[in-house]
């Protein structure tokens, strides 16, 4: 199976990223990044796990990355670094990552999905080893991972959930926690940025939300947590054109020169709204091609087969 990843950056980047498929390291600098990946790569549901992971994918990323040499000279600019990462599905021992430098499946692996097991390589986030961090520590470090199918949590209101998440982060940073009223003030502009009705705050987390509402809710959480690197896992799946535009608008509303977004997607369509700086193509658990948005366009025209045979 094939998929492609695209990166687009809002700012012009001095150095193009270099992402190699088997042995070199990948650097991602603060900027927006988008990935297109085959859904099997990132899926965490059992259904998908059963399928074969022998797939080709393209990734596009929007980031500033450079080769190994520059990596050593400017280590402070490195946000996320994935080196020779290999991983398997813990249950079936099936290999899903084969020495990838910037991989997709880590979507889950990065936040520590218990069903996957890293077998080799390193991932460092802002110079710290990500693989040894607990999921909540990764979040506190400034990494955000959107869920492809966000779970519904009956009985917990969205407002309470966001407040808990926000205060957990503030506590970690040594900032005073917010009261519900203060929090509402903090939240209001963010609601507007992601075009969400405040009524959603009273509803239970994701319960009865439509596909687009769930995705926008993920983006709202990202806005609240103010993460430096967000991995948005197929945020365009299952959305119609209008919902996709809403989600894309929400993402664009959050972009600043100081944060980066890694997007994983199947389709070119999302990239019409969010422009990636870099595009990576992933195949069979390794990144095989890296380029700019033209790579995504080429892919759209010719399909994965052309890319992987090239």
């Amino acid at each position, binding site marked *: 199976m094939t998929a492609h990843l695209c990166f687009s950056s809002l700012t012009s980047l001095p150095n193009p990223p270099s992402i190699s498929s088997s042995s070199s390291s990948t650097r991602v600098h603060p900027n927006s990044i988008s990935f297109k990946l085959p859904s099997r790569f990132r899926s965490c549901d059992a259904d998908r796990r059963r399928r074969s992971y022998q797939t080709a994918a393209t990734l596009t990323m929007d980031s500033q990355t450079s080769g190994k040499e520059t990596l050593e000279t400017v280590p402070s600019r490195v946000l996320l670094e994935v080196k020779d990462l290999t991983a398997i599905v813990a249950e079936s021992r099936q290999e899903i990552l084969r020495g990838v430098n910037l991989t997709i499946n880590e979507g889950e692996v990065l936040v520590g999905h218990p069903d996957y097991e890293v077998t080799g390589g390193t991932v460092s986030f802002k110079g710290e080893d990500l693989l040894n961090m607990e*999921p*909540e520590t990764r*979040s506190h470090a400034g990494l955000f991972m959107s869920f492809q199918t966000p779970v519904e*949590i009956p009985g917990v209101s969205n407002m309470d959930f966001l407040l808990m998440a926000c205060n957990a982060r503030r506590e970690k940073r040594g900032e005073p926690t917010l009261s519900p009223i203060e929090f509402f003030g903090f939240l209001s502009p963010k609601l507007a940025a992601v075009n969400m009705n405040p009524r959603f705050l009273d509803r239970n987390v994701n319960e009865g939300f439509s596909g687009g509402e769930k995705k926008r809710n993920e983006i709202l959480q990202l806005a609240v947590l103010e993460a430096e690197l967000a991995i948005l896992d197929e945020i365009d799946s299952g959305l119609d054109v209008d919902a996709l535009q809403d989600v894309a608008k929400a993402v664009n509303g959050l972009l600043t020169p100081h944060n980066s977004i890694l997007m994983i997607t199947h389709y070119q369509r999302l990239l019409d709204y969010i422009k990636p700086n870099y595009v990576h193509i992933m195949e069979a658990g390794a990144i095989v091609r890296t380029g700019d948005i033209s790579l995504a366009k080429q892919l759209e025209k010719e399909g994965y087969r052309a890319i992987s045979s090239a």
Partner: protein
Amino acid sequence: MACCCYTNFSSTLAPLRLRRPPRRRNSITAANPASVSLSDPFVLDIADKLEDSVSTSSSSSFSLLQKLRDSSSQSLLSQRWPSPKDELYRFTDTSFLKSSKILPASPPSIISPSLSSPASNIITLVDGHVIPALSRIPSLPAGAFAGSAADIPPGALYENLLAAAGELFHNGDLFWNLNGFGAPDLAVVYIPDGARMIDEPLHLRFCAVDAAEAGSGRLPLSNPRVLVVAGKQAELAIVEEHLGVESGEGNSYWSNSVVEIVVEEGGKVSHSYVQKQSVNAAHIKWTLVRQETRSSYELVEISTGGKLSRHNLHVQQLGPDTTTELSAFHVAQGDQIQDLHSKLVLDHPRGYSRQLHKCIVSHSTGHVVFDGNIKVNRFAQQTDAGQLTRTLLLAPRATANVMPNLQIIADDVKCSHGAAISDLEEEHLFYFQARGIDMKTARDALVFSFGSEILARIPFEAYRKSISHQVKELLTAS
């Protein structure tokens, strides 16, 4: 004082009476060893003490109560203390009661101001006695009555109530009869045909004041009893609250209460029931509901207190197009037992019922029991009955015994039931963690959210808020 004894030991059990000359009792037991198997000395002992206590009580003379005592005493002596061999007590260990020295609660003397409540319509019962000083009902509709049965004026109302109270309930167990025999007072709520009392609920407050120090082995027993009658097309909302009011924390007592509710044709009763007894108390309660044609009854139960808490709920639909909705949320912490035995009998066409039972056991010695029986009899065609029970076991060795069961004889019905017992969903916890929320906060939020579905059904905001707050504190502290 008179004591317990038998008149008759024929092979078919003839009606027994408690009032016997004291001397004959020993002679009969001695002379007739067969009687030992028919009577339970422990039950006799309690009945004996209760009889002493109610006959000294001044308010015991009115005939509604007398009638109740007579009928209860007849059944009482044929009943044994329940053992694990009895189906209804298979999983519910009553040895806490059996090993205690049970004494009737003494009549309330000084009324402590701590018993007052901000509720606007309230009837307070202290150890089973209606306390007029702590009761007020400003929004009682015309023609309605709420208070002690001793204060009912003679006339049509009295006759109506006598008829309603007189319908004997034959499936009452030992505790039902102990209550009927030992109740020192009878609180009555009567809403006449077409009247409404739903904007401001009527708060029925059951306070246990006479209590013994935990571990002393003494267990003061009170037998509060309430009869609620909602007339034709009448609407009534009640909030029933059980609590211990004592100087020391966690004192011991036994509250053995009965609430009977009659909903007449087209009537509507919304019933919220909150049980927050002391953690060293025993709370055994009967709720008996009789629903006439096109009536509706909704119960929301939140039960968190008591070392041993048993709720026997029996609802009978007596006419077609009748609606029953039952929800319960139980929390068993420490060494608590939370038990709900419910029985819903549908005998008529187009009945509707929903039952949702949820409980949390948060300690390894905690125990919940649920036996939910729904009987859809031959003539109950086109019944729509649903039942769901969900249990959250949060500690290793925490125990739940759930027996959801539907007995269906009618052949054109829609019925469903389900049971689930689990720990918290990993997927939910992971979602919290991925957003930077630590495990403890995530667990607390999820545990509370489990019960919030039931808490949200409490129809009055002020109660909903205060009860939710109390439950939250309880669950977070554990």
